[in-house]
């Protein structure tokens, strides 16, 4: 099996940049959301469409990023 349609796009979630990387294997789309800086994966998901996989990853990313506190420097 080969991955197809690999793509990446950046969005903003709760004020944080998030990179969505997705690809399809057969009929399943895989999506990973990372936090851009430093680039750690914060959510992975699958779906029958790219949109569905991305939305699931974004939902989890929203939940996790909402917990990140900014300190006064």
């Amino acid at each position, binding site marked *: 099996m080969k991955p197809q349609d*690999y793509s990446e796009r950046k969005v903003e979630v709760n004020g*944080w940049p998030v990179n969505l990387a997705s690809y399809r294997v057969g009929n399943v789309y895989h999506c990973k959301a990372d936090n851009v800086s430093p680039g*750690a*994966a914060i959510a992975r998901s699958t779906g029958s469409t790219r949109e569905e996989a991305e939305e699931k990853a974004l939902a989890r990313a929203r939940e996790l*990023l909402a917990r990140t506190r900014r300190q006064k*420097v």
Partner: protein
Amino acid sequence: MGNYAHPEVLVTTEWVAQHATDPAVRVAEVDVDTAAYNEGHVPGALGWAWNTQLCDTVRRDILSKQQFEELMASSGITNDTTVVLYGDNNNWFAAWAAWQMKIYGHRDVRIMNGGRKKWLAEGRELSTQVPQPARTTYRASDADLSLRAFLPQVQDAMKGRTAGLVDVRSPQEFTGEILAPPGLPETCQRGGHIPGARSIPWGKACNDDGTFKSFDELKALYGAEGIDGSRPVIAYCRIGERSSHTWFVLKYLLGYGDVKNYDGSWTEWGNLVGAPIEKGAAVAAA
């Protein structure tokens, strides 16, 4: 592979496609866990999870020599095997595995340039089959601690400015604005950085496709912050995995002689009672 100091430590995705199942070669995908590996991996590749297989799971430490030998033996790796590591996040955790393999003296360790990301983007073959390699006998060397920094060495380096301290975390972690990468659990009591450290985020060493930047670009990147190989270097991040990536770059791609990874990193320093901390952006390199 470019004009790196040790080009033999990198292989291309094409090389891996050609050699992944050679008997003398063992490929391993390394990540924080095996979630990505389970989606599909390089055919013939093993999956190593940082959180269960590449750390001591009881005390905070790297694998003991015995644990390392067991991992190698159960992975079908002999002392003569060419081990190719790759992973997600531009090879973060692959670099951690490479660092540990070098600590225990494995001779031929290579990293697939571009990692999992490049393999996927190129539409290369994936497999969900998990190999069951025949067990081997493996004899590790005693740990080479010249590659690893412990707290007292970092404290000495900070006080005496005897080594360049490279903080490879994000700028917001460096300044103290956040205590952990966005979306990840906070694992320290205080934010900021070790006094005197230079901020050179690990990802600056990579191109958009996940491959390493050229020798000249890397030399300029680190040189601009006073990290030029003329004195020892200690790299750190939060838990030591991002800094193992920078360790790999400085040690093998630029060929600097004395480079250590401080795997205690900010989760150690930022939790120490009474440890000096600087906040805010770094001052310009001298």
